[in-house]
Structures are given as C-alpha cells and as structure tokens.
C-alpha cells in the first residue's frame, strides 16, 4: 500500500486549484456515525457543538478521511423557523409538527438567523473542529437547500401537493427559506467552514425534471451564486436517484456534485468538463452490509471511472455513512483510495 504524501488540507487545496495531488480525495459522508464510534448518543451529539466537534475529531483521527463534515439532521433549518421535531435518544430527530399547516400559519413563520434553534450548535462544532485540527484537515458543514427546508416547514407530502395546488405558497416558502439558507451559508463560512448544500427532498426519486427546474433549480442557482461570491466553491449533494435531474443539477452553478444512486460512468459522461463529481460507494449495500473486500472492489471501479472525470473526482459515499457502519469498512475505503486512487 502506498503512503500519503500530503495532508488532507494540502490535498483539498490542490484539488481546488487544479494542482497535482498524491491521490484522490476521500470523503465518506461521516455524520451521525461520528457519534456512534465515539460512544455518544445521537441526542447528545446533535445538541452540543463541542460534543459534535469532539466526535468528528475522533472519527478523523481514526479514519484519516479528507474532509470533516459537520451535520446531524435534515430539519434543523426548518426547526429554527418554527417546525417542531421529535428527538429519539440515539437516532436522528424527525419532523413532528410542520410549521405551516395552512396559509394562516405563514404570518407566524420566522426568518430565522444563524443564532436561532440549533443552528449555533453546528457553528460551534465548526469553530471547535477547525481550531483543533483545521491546520491539517478542512472542516465542512452540510446544510439544507431551500426546497428541503420548505419540505420540512410544510411536510414533504403537502409541499408535493402545493407544487400543483398552491404554487404561490410553495414559492413563498422557498423564497423565505432561500434567505435563511444564504445567511446560514455566510455564518458557516465566517466560522471557518466550507458549506455543503444538501437537497435530499429534491431528489429524482420524488420530483421530475420539470418540477426540479421550476421549484428547485432557481433557488439552488441563487444560493450557489451567493456562496461563490464569498470566494468559496459551491458543493451540492442530492441523494437517491438523480439521473433524470442530473442535467439540471449541472446547471445549478455547483463546482462539485455529490451523487448517490446513479451510474458514476454515466454521470461522468454527462458532466464532461462542466462540474466535478463525488461519490458513490453504496451506503447500505456496501458500507453497512458489505465486507472490506466489497468496499475495496467498489473503490477500485470508482477510481478508474474517476480518472476520466474531466473536472475532477472525489471518492465519496453515496449518502450519509450509516450510523452502524463497521469501522473496518471505512478503513478499507481509505486503504482502497491509497491503493487504487494514486495520482502521482
């Protein structure tokens, strides 16, 4: 096995500036798994920024992956704006009561600031991790894009109906969410983090391309432009099946697309030199349920596809690394990228 010759931070900077790297970046989306391997309950992890940071630092020390990804759950932004969540002891919180059940609720909706709800938890986690290990590994923070925020303000099934029955309400929620998203992206950058825009509800498993272009794309474009104006490359993650919306995702202005349930070879051909790609070791089948050998085989095939990505490739997991993933499978992912992802 070959040895690393760069730190994650050096590698990441080389990737962004198009300079030579020793190997592909390896970014398994380690989120709540960081709590599990640290012996911390998810309910403690997602409410205390210091705890969250300590879990991620421990995970980084163990695996040596190339990007710390601060995140817990998809409803935090909507929670700061008025939705209520239920907190299981050792799993991710879920939407309990959407903020907007009818038009009258709109007046009670809060244009949240980064000081509201649990948003400060994430910011504190970024600052803590960045000050502890930021000189060797970059710290990123996933946060929800407008469509996914609106879905957590309204409930996914109600927002889906609004796309036909109440477009003004949908656009009202999306516009307000966009403003909150922009402010939070700024706060992430100010805290020393790299924002990763996540839009799990805008997946092709739920929406068609026409709806994506009408209700998702304009808001993503504005958010990405806002991030780019800060001098930070916009990174976009959408999970599930995305092949039908891939062309629209490419038009979103993202510098990098993190992909899940999709053929990476087909994505590479469609992306051409327009956008870098990240992915997509299968989270459940391979990382959670597979063996280290299964992980290595998938890493090998992805790295060979990655070599033909004209705008760059990062080896990643398709979606969140499942909480209970055996650590040896993540170790195999890192070993695999050192073996099969060598670049110079």
């Amino acid at each position, binding site marked *: 096995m070959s040895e690393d010759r760069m730190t994650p931070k050096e590698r990441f900077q080389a990737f962004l500036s198009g300079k030579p790297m020793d190997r592909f970046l390896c970014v398994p989306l380690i989120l709540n798994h960081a709590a599990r391997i640290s012996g911390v309950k998810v309910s403690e992890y997602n409410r205390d920024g210091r705890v969250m940071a300590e879990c991620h630092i421990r995970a980084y020390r163990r695996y040596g992956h190339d990007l710390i990804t601060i995140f817990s759950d998809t409803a935090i932004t909507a929670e700061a704006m008025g939705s209520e969540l239920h907190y*299981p002891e050792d*799993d*991710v919180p*879920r*939407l309990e009561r959407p903020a907007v059940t009818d038009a009258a609720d709109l007046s009670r909706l809060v244009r949240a600031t980064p000081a509201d709800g649990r948003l400060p938890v994430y910011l504190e986690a970024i600052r803590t991790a960045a000050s502890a290990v930021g000189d060797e590994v970059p710290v990123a923070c996933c946060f929800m894009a407008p469509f996914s925020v609106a879905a957590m303000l309204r409930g*996914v*099934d109600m927002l*889906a*109906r609004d*796309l*036909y*029955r109440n477009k003004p309400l949908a656009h009202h929620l999306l516009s307000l969410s966009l403003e909150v998203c922009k402010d939070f992206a700024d706060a992430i950058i100010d805290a020393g983090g790299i924002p990763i825009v996540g839009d799990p509800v805008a997946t092709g*498993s*739920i*929406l*068609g391309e026409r*709806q994506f272009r009408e209700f998702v794309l304009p808001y993503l474009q504005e958010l990405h432009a806002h991030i780019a104006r800060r001098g930070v490359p916009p990174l976009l993650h959408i999970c*599930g099946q995305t092949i*039908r919306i891939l062309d629209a995702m490419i038009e979103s202005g993202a510098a990098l697309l993190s992909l899940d*349930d999709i053929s990476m070879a087909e994505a590479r051909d469609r992306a051409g030199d327009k956008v870098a790609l990240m992915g997509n070791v299968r*989270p*459940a*089948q391979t990382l*959670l*349920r597979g063996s280290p050998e299964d992980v290595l085989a998938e890493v090998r095939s992805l790295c060979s596809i990655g070599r033909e990505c004209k705008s760059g490739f990062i080896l990643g997991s398709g979606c969140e690394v*499942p*909480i*209970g993933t055996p650590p040896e499978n993540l170790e195999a992912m890192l070993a695999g990228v050192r073996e099969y992802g060598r670049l110079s």
Partner: protein
Amino acid sequence: MDTTSEILLKELARAVVEMDEEGAVAAACRAIELGMDPQIAISEGLSAGMRKVGELYERGEYFVPEILICSDAMYAAIDVLEPHIKVSPARRPVRVILGVIEGDIHDLGKNIVKIMLEAAGFEVEDLGRDVKAESFVRAARETGSGIIGLSTLMSTTMDNMAKVVQGLREAGLRKNFQIMIGGGPTSPAFAREIGADGHGANATEAVELAESLAGRLPCLKTG
C-alpha cells in the same frame, strides 16, 4: 354493460389520471344516481385510473406530486361511493398490514405503496411510521392472516425488519402471513437474509408482489 355505465367508468378513470378531484366526485355522484354498483365504480373506474397513474409513474411521466394528487381524487370519489356498498362477506379482500419500521421517519414511499395497494383492491391497515416490531405482531394477531409490508428508507433501521419476522415466528403467526419488504437500502438478497417472502423495489413492484403473495396465503380466497 350499457354505454352510459361504460362512459361513466371511463370518466371516473380519466378524472383520477388527470388529477381532477371535482370531476371524480361528480362522476361518483352520477354513478350513485344511476344505481351503478359502487364496487364496480371503484374497481373498474377509479382503480383502473390509478393503475394508469402507476404506469405513468413507472415510465417517468408522473412523479410523487402527481401520484398524491391523483390519489386525492380517487379517495374523494371513494368517500362518495363507499356508504352505498352492500357488504358481502364472500368477497372479503386480502388484508395488508403496512408500516414503516421502528426508528424510521420516512413514510412517503409507504404512503404511495398504500395508495397503489388500495387501488388494486387490497384492504390496507396502515400502522404509520416509526412502528415497533411488537405493534406489527399485535396487528397480525388481530388480523389472523394476510400480508405484512415493511418499509424503510434508512439503513440504520434495516435490522429492525428482521425483528418483525422473528416476532411473528415466536408468536406462532409466521405461517399465516406473507411478508414483503421495500425501501431504498433494502434488496432481494436482504429480504432472503431476514426470512421475508419478497422484495419490491417500487410501488408497482410492491403491488405485483402482493398479488402473487396473496395466492400463497393459507385457507384464504384471494377474490
């Protein structure tokens, strides 16, 4: 069947496919006025429309928003028709106990499977989301026999599916039920591994699977 009835059945189907809730309700009222058998209006009108919706979904022409709005039209018309159904015990439909397993927050996929199963004539008992293994076993004991559908979108909760299979075994109910699973991280191999009877990758497959599993149920006419 006379021409008026045929036109009405087509209108019921059309209204569902075209997301026309008012049209579906109006056609259902007309069916009652004309003395049409409400069960036929449902199975050959509304359900036929919903099957077409399923096909459009499979072809990538319809997506989740369309399915939800089509089903709203279907259910609004069923609400008109249902009070007029004369219950005949001979035609008892196959029961499906459906739920998203413990620890899982996502129920969108399950709701769509429910819509398509009901459109196909199954009687669905929806246990909702975040359903504990014991609740599936309790519902199974009350129902006696039928199909159990488990879904999840989260890999963290997959192992809880095995607990349901195990719980049914321990309660001596396993042989009375066919178990099907579905949802993002699941696979046919995983279904075999935990001892379930089948795996459906999407709502259409789930309905086909339920229809084939219904044929395997003991001592029960599948209607």
